[in-house]
C-alpha cells in the first residue's frame, strides 16, 4: 500500500479511456466519492466492469448520466433507463454477462487462470461465438478472464497497510475485484491503525491495495 489520496488526486490518475472495475450491487458497496470525483474531472470513454449500472443518481449510474462511459460489461442494466437509452442510441456498448459468470471471469483474471468453464449460458444467446469444451462428457462454455486498469472498491474499514473488511451485502464484487485491477484504489468508511483489524477478519489483504482514499471530511 502506497498511501492515502484525495478523491480528486485519484481521479487524476485515471486517464480517459481507462478500464475500471467498480464494486457494488445496485450501488450498495460502491465507492461513491471516487465516482463523484471522476464525474467532476469530466472523465470520458471509460470501460466499466460492474455487476449493474445502478440507477440514475447512484453509483455507476452517475458515470452513465455524465457521459463518462463508452462501454460496460455487466449482468444487469434493468434499473437504469439511461443505460438502456444510451445503448439503443449507440452511445454505450453493453456486454451482458450472467452474474455468476461475471464474477468468475474477474476472479480468473485476478488469479492467473485461463478462463472459466461454466454450464451457465449453454444453449442460450450467451453461447453465441464462444468455445464449448467437453469435460467427462459434459459441455461447458469457455468464458475468458477479465482484468482492468483500475479496480475501485468500497470497504467498511481499512487499516494503514491497506487491509480491508466489508459489511454484510456490501461485500459483493469488491473482494474479487481487488485481485483483478492493475491499480487498486479502495474507499473505506474509516481507516484504523494496524492491528485493529485482526488477521482472521481481513477480507482483502493490504498487499493487493495500492491506494486508499483519505477519510471523508
Amino acid at each position: 500500500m502506497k498511501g492515502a489520496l484525495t478523491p480528486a488526486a485519484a481521479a487524476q490518475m485515471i486517464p480517459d479511456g481507462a478500464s475500471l472495475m467498480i464494486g457494488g450491487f445496485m450501488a450498495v458497496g460502491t465507492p461513491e466519492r471516487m465516482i463523484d470525483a471522476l464525474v467532476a474531472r469530466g472523465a470520458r470513454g471509460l470501460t466499466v466492469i460492474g455487476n449493474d449500472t445502478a440507477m440514475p443518481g447512484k453509483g455507476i449510474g452517475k458515470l452513465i448520466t455524465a457521459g463518462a462511459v463508452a462501454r460496460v460489461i455487466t449482468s444487469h442494466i434493468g434499473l437504469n433507463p439511461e443505460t438502456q437509452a444510451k445503448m439503443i442510441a449507440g452511445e454505450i456498448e453493453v456486454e451482458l454477462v450472467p452474474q455468476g459468470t461475471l464474477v468468475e471471469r474477474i476472479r480468473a483474471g485476478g488469479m492467473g487462470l485461463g478462463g472459466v468453464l461454466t454450464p451457465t449460458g449453454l444453449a442460450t444467446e450467451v453461447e453465441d461465438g464462444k468455445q464449448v469444451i467437453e469435460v467427462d462428457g459434459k459441455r461447458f462454455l469457455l468464458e475468458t478472464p477479465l482484468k482492468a486498469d483500475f479496480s475501485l472498491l468500497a470497504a467498511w474499514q481499512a487499516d494503514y497497510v491497506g487491509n480491508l473488511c466489508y459489511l454484510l451485502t456490501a461485500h459483493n464484487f469488491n473482494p474479487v475485484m481487488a485481485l483483478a485491477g492493475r491499480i487498486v484504489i479502495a474507499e473505506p468508511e474509516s481507516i484504523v491503525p494496524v492491528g485493529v483489524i485482526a488477521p482472521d477478519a481481513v477480507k482483502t489483504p493490504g498487499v493487493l491495495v495500492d491506494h486508499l482514499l483519505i477519510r471523508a471530511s
Partner: protein
Amino acid sequence: MDAKTLIARRVAQEIKPGMLVNLGIGLPSLVASFVPASLGVFFQAENGVIGLGARPPEGMEDPHLTDAGGSFVSAVPGAASIDSAMSFGLIRGGHLDMTVLGGLQVDEAGHLANWKVPGKMVPGMGGAMDLVTGAARVVVAMQHAAKGASKIVPRCTLPLTAMRRVNLIVTDLAVIEPTGAGLILRERAPGVSVDDILAATEAALVIPDDVPEMTLS
C-alpha cells in the same frame, strides 16, 4: 385472495425444512412470508447474504444490507455474509435447494424464458441464468397469462434463460409439472376447472385422471 397471494401461498408449500432457498424479486419474494420460521429455512439473497430476514424496524435500515432488489432487509440469527463468488458458487454448485423465479414463458420442454424481450426489454440476465442452471429445484411463479395471452406455450419464442427443464410451474390457475413426457397438470386453483385451464393454456397439457384442487394450508 388475489392472484399473487394465491401463487405465493402455494409455492410456500414446496419449501421443506432446512432448505436453502433463493426468491426472485417481485412476486417470488412474497413467498417468504408464508414459510413458518419453525421450518429452519434459510433464504439466500444472491447479492450476499444467507439468512435474509424481514424488513427492518422503521429507522433501523442499514444501507449495507439489502436484498437483490435493492430493498432494505434484515438478517436472521445464524446469517452469514458472502461475496458474489461464494454466492454464485453456492448457486452453480447445486448447494441451493430451490429457486423461485418469475417467468415470461415456459414451454412444453419445460424451458423458461424470463430475461429478455428483444427490441422491447433488455434488462440483462442478472443472476437468472445461473439460478436456473444450478439450483437443485427451479419453481416458476407467474400469472398464467399476460394481456390475455398464455405464458405457457408450445415452444418459447423469447430467448431462453437456460437449457434446463424447470421442475414446477405455479400460476393463479394451476400447478404444472414439466417432465420428459410433457407438461403434467397437477393441481387446479380453487374454483378453477380443468377446462378453464385448458382454455387458458396454449401449450399441450397432460391431464391425469385426478387433478385435485390446490390446498392452501
